[in-house]
């Protein structure tokens, strides 16, 4: 049974090792608004900030091109940093880029690698906590939106989404709807109906592409233990 929880709510009378919780006096307390599943012992945050983690794909805007580094705005309290010698091609200030997190320094600056400039298109800002839901289990949700709107979508784990081509307005409406109804079951079917496509199944072949790292809700179970590398 899943239930909605608020910060400070006691989830269990025993210590649980979960994201977005703290253990105090042997009790587990939530630190965010989320969905807590008592049977499976999982916590899905519905609101949250983004922490850069190794290997994550991000979308950012180049803020400043210095002599040997590029400073990237990641829509987060942390700045991204690209060292010029690892960058291929021409990057200029104002460019939208896609890159992966290579390492984190102690102050929380994320060093990025493999940058790719994204030309044209639009940028959509969503809550970082909703990105796994926009991806869907095994990328089903994003594949479905791409199929329904013929828009090319690049998801950044930091909450920036780059869209180009096709029916962008419909794609934005669909993504916003996913964001607002992330916690309501049966979302994939509703979005499929909205876009007029067949609901994608999880068993379908995984899409070839660069954003395949996380698998929806399972993410939180997998990521136990490697949490907060910056602390």
């Amino acid at each position, binding site marked *: 049974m899943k239930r909605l929880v*608020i*910060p*400070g709510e006691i989830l269990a009378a025993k210590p649980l090792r979960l994201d977005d919780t*703290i253990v105090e006096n042997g009790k587990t307390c939530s630190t965010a608004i989320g969905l807590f599943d008592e049977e499976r012992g999982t916590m899905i945050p519905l609101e*949250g900030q983004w922490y850069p983690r190794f290997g994550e794909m991000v979308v950012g805007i180049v803020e400043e091109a210095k002599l040997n580094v590029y400073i990237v705005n990641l829509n987060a*309290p942390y*700045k991204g940093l690209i060292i010029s010698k690892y960058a291929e091609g021409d990057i200029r200030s104002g460019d939208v880029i896609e890159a992966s997190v290579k390492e984190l320094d102690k102050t*929380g600056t994320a060093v990025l690698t493999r940058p790719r400039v994204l030309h044209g298109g639009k940028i959509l800002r969503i809550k970082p906590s909703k990105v796994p839901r926009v991806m869907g289990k095994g990328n089903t949700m994003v594949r479905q939106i791409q199929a329904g709107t013929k828009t090319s979508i690049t998801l950044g784990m930091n909450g920036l989404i780059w869209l180009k081509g096709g029916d962008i307005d419909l794609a934005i409406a669909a993504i916003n709807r996913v964001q607002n109804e992330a916690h309501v*079951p049966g979302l994939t079917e509703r979005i499929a109906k909205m876009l007029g496509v067949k609901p994608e199944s999880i068993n379908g072949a995984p899409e070839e592409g660069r954003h395949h790292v996380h698998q929806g809700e399972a993410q939180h179970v997998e990521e136990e233990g490697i949490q907060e590398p910056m*602390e």
Partner: protein
Amino acid sequence: MKEKKELMKEGKRLDGRGMGDLRHIAITANPIKNAAGSAYIEWGGNKILAAVYGPREALPKHISDPQRAIIKCRYMMAPFSSLEEHGRVGMNRRAVEISKVTKETFESVVMLEMFPGSEISIMIEVLQGDGGTRAAGITCAAVAMALSGIPMTDLPYAVSAGKIGSDVVLDLNKIEDNYSDADMPIAVNPRNREVTLLQMDGEMTREEIRKAMDMVIEAGKTISRIQREAILAPYQKASEAYG
């Protein structure tokens, strides 16, 4: 010295409340789209907007802390908010004080060490004041903070208690605040019952303070429930729409 006013009528307060009764409280989630989280509270005659921005880069750079985030808080009363004068530009002595105590309340619950070098801004804007605005502001800002997704270990609430004649009363309104014998705003973290704000104007005995504390803790259950409902309302609305 203020002139004495009759604040009790036939064992009840002027607005008909009993000694331990709260005024009507209603909280709306996320009225401000640009903020990370925001809330609007109507607490009796108080109308207060609170918005939380950040975490973002702390500026100017020298105020940032490399170990943790800093909180900036700005409590302001709008020029039209009350009968008394709040019309001058900028913060007055009272606003600076309330901003400081509000900031300290939130420093105890927000997990600042998660965002080194950044700042979190809390803006509290009183549109209409009717006594107990700092308490209502903290209650409202707590909801805004939760909605912003900034990790918190607890959801604080605040309410004032005071004394009229020989009676200990809860949640004083403007007229009671001005003419009562004592006024004591209290902020509490409900999970551990930690008191994070306690100010007092006037005089109360030890027993009266103890009684006031009990009233605050009891009323806190109601306030926490209203806060919880406000935070979860957008989610429940979406859930109900699709069964």
